[in-house]
């Protein structure tokens, strides 16, 4: 049973204790890590306040590069948020039997990456105190949210996805909150009692919970796809060489899933190591994630080549100048992108040995994260740096203020995740329990194989 033989159905209490180690009272080391992350977050916030008070001149932004690392980070974080909920939803619908241990961690990653990513446009707008101009409200000053602008589509889509992802995360957690409630004491018991909403595990509740989870999963997939399509359209709608491309929406979605999968691998490996979850997060999960990562690497390579080939053959001077700059000032970034996204990951991930080795898979995932950030940066910056008129061409490098804000954002993401893991069940205990319950060892000839029961819902009048 993939290394989880001892996690049997009749030992549910032991299963919960093993999977909820992250909820144990915080240790000194936990406080040290959380304190460090808080300090870096506060440093980032401080730099943002400094930027707000001093003006955008403290960034490296200058005409014509008016979108820089902050917008690249926005695209990157929104992309990173993709795979969590999306993968979880796809695995739920397809009833993938290996899914259970990665669901919660992946869904939480989506929620926090979205929260962090959604801050970047607000940080970037300059006059940050006027962010409420995006909200439609009656006023007499002719201030109106221009819904014909892709940036407004973005605001609507990201808010829909954030609310949907948070609901998806919370709804999936209800049975585990009920388990936590029945095991907890003190303030945690009250906390889980309120959050579990009185879920008891009755037959009626379970049936409806499964139907609702499936509906959620079905609904969240098109929302996830639309969000990153719209992020792609933020660029594609502009008549800027290098941006104005019909391929951008699917290309962005592919890149988002790719980087999101790499993020899921890294988060899962960290959880496994820190909370000793080796019995739940086995090589099976990592190998399957590796296969998906391999597919996405190939798909990303295909999209990039298709985009490059069209520009190369056409040789439209304005667009070609953008691509030529990849061989000049932006060569290190371009090489990082191609090497880290395709040249190294694809052949490595084709090897079973690499997919089954967690350190190797983490190394490849880290490369993908670096490569995808480089890709986002290249898309945002290069097209502006080589825009139409050669007399205004200008290279861009982020300032220390921008680097500080980026570091603060990363620390904020990690801090939110750390606090979440301390307070909430980070493993989908009830899903794991259900999977163990459905699994039996079966003998075929001389071989012992795992067999999974796939129940049909034979309810008289119900959906199932």
């Amino acid at each position, binding site marked *: 049973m993939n290394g989880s033989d001892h996690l049997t*159905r*009749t030992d*549910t*209490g032991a299963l*919960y204790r093993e999977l909820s180690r992250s909820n144990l009272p915080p240790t000194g080391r936990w406080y040290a890590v959380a304190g460090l992350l808080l300090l870096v977050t506060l440093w980032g916030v401080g730099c943002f306040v400094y930027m707000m008070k001093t003006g955008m001149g403290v960034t490296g932004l200058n005409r014509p590069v008016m979108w820089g690392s902050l917008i690249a980070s926005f695209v990157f974080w929104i992309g990173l948020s993709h795979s969590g909920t999306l993968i979880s939803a796809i695995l739920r619908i397809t009833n993938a039997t290996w899914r259970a241990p990665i669901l919660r961690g992946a869904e939480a990653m989506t929620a926090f990456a979205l929260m962090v990513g959604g801050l970047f446009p607000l940080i970037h707008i300059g006059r940050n105190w006027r962010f409420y101009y995006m909200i*439609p409200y*009656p006023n007499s000053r*002719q201030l*109106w*949210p*221009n*819904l*014909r*602008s892709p940036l*407004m*589509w973005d605001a*609507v*889509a990201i*808010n*829909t996805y954030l*609310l*949907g992802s948070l*609901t998806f995360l919370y*709804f999936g957690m209800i049975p585990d909150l009920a*388990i936590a409630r*029945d095991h907890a004491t003190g303030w945690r018991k009250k906390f889980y009692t309120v959050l579990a*909403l*009185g*879920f*008891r*595990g*009755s*037959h*009626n*509740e*379970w*049936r*409806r*919970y*499964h*139907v*609702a989870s499936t*509906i959620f999963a079905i*609904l*969240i997939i*098109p*929302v996830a796809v*639309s969000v990153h399509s*719209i992020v792609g359209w933020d660029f594609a709608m502009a008549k800027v060489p290098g941006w104005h491309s019909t391929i951008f929406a699917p290309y962005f979605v592919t890149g988002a899933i790719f980087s999101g999968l790499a993020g899921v691998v890294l988060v899962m490996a960290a959880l496994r190591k820190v909370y000793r979850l080796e019995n739940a997060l086995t090589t099976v999960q990592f190998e399957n994630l590796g296969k998906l990562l391999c597919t996405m690497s190939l798909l990303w390579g295909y999209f990039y080549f298709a985009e490059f080939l069209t520009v190369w053959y056409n040789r439209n001077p304005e667009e070609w100048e953008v691509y030529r700059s990849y061989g000049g000032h932006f060569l290190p970034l371009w090489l990082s992108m191609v090497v880290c996204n395709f040249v190294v990951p694809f052949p490595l991930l084709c090897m079973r040995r690499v997919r089954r080795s967690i350190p190797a898979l983490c190394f490849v995932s880290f490369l993908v994260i670096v490569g995808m950030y480089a890709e986002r940066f290249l898309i945002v910056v290069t097209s502006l740096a080589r825009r139409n008129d050669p007399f205004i061409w200008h290279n861009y490098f982020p300032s220390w203020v921008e680097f500080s804000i980026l570091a603060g954002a990363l620390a904020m993401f990690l801090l939110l995740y750390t606090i979440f893991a301390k307070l909430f069940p980070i493993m989908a205990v*009830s899903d794991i*329990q259900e999977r163990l319950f459905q699994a039996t060892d079966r003998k075929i000839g001389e071989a012992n194989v795992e067999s999974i029961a796939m*129940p049909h*819902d*034979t*309810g*008289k*009048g*119900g*959906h*199932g």
Partner: protein
Amino acid sequence: MSGIVVVGLFDAVDPAAAAARALRALPLPEGDITTLSPMALPDGAVCRDPRGIGFPKVTLAGWFVGALAGLALALGTYLLYPLITGGKAIVSVPPTLIITYEVAMLGALAGTVIAGFREMGLCRFRTRLIHDPRIQEGKILLCARVSGDEQAERAMDAMRTAGGVDVRPEEGAL
């Protein structure tokens, strides 16, 4: 839906299923027998849920309400501020479709949550509900709503015969 409920703890699915069979033979209606378990049991493994699941209709209704809200938001904004931007028509179809779609999906998600919670019977904080935390140790609590002491006695006998422990009458809602 409260009243006298007879409950019994079972170590495994098979004895619980045998007890449920005996309860149905009493006869108790299908809807008055249920289980509390730490994981979902297939419908029919111990008991059946005779009620249909209606909330997907609310999901659909939520989608339509959301779509109307999105359409109203987009059209209302255009018409309140009829300013031409980017050479686009005042009422532009593609952006309207995008806004309508996003708000429609939000409506569908909200509909699923609200109706799902309602049909699952969650958030009943003031109602005394039947519960036994020992199910988290892998046990199954079989519950049967009964009318009268005689039926309660027969139900408890059936549960004990099938191997149930701590069989007792309780007051509360299922």
